[in-house]
């Protein structure tokens, strides 16, 4: 087995992964601020709540730009792994989301799901799919 010395491609991928991770954390933090701030930090003041929502939207735009740059910077195998993972995440979100809506309308589920649950589910599915992709092409 060969020793693994990071190549230029590896280093670019690491840098872009780190940037994407930072934007992801930033987006999640601003989402939590917008979600819990009105109740716990600024006593439901409208301006502050709108500010938090705006901040979250801004972070979301940054996150998407970082993701697009990340996909452009990585090489073709890594891009394939990411695209496969995104496709699986989208499929799970789409199918799972509609199944939940149908089940809720039919009064089969009484649990009121928060949108955060869907985000967390998609995040977990995405990470598992990425890990599976790396294992597949290892």
């Amino acid at each position, binding site marked *: 087995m060969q020793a693994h010395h990071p190549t230029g491609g590896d280093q670019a991928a690491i840098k872009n992964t780190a940037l994407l991770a930072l934007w992801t954390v930033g987006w999640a933090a601003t989402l939590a601020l917008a979600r819990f701030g009105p109740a716990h930090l600024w006593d439901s003041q409208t301006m502050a709540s709108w500010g938090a929502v705006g901040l979250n939207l801004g972070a979301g735009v940054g996150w998407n730009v970082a993701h697009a740059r990340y996909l452009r910077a990585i*090489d073709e*195998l890594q891009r394939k792994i990411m695209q496969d993972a995104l496709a699986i995440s989208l499929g799970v979100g789409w199918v799972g989301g509609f199944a939940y809506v149908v089940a809720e309308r039919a009064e089969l589920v009484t649990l009121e799901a928060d949108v955060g649950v869907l985000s967390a589910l998609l995040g977990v599915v995405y990470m598992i799919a990425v890990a599976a992709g790396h294992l597949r*092409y290892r």
Partner: protein
Amino acid sequence: MNNRLKDLRTERNWTQADLAEHVSVSRQTINAIEKGKFDPSLPLAFRLARLFGMSIEEVFLDDPVRD
């Protein structure tokens, strides 16, 4: 798709990382191509062939069974 990448690389005493550096991809990508798990794009196949001074057909071999 079969290929001769590993043979061509070892003839030159290059590691997978060396080859990856030459064609600006990750070592994982070179490993996956060598093992036949991943077929490279045409531009990458051209870069690899050019690096070894060969044509694409001399580096990558058709595998009709998998087509």
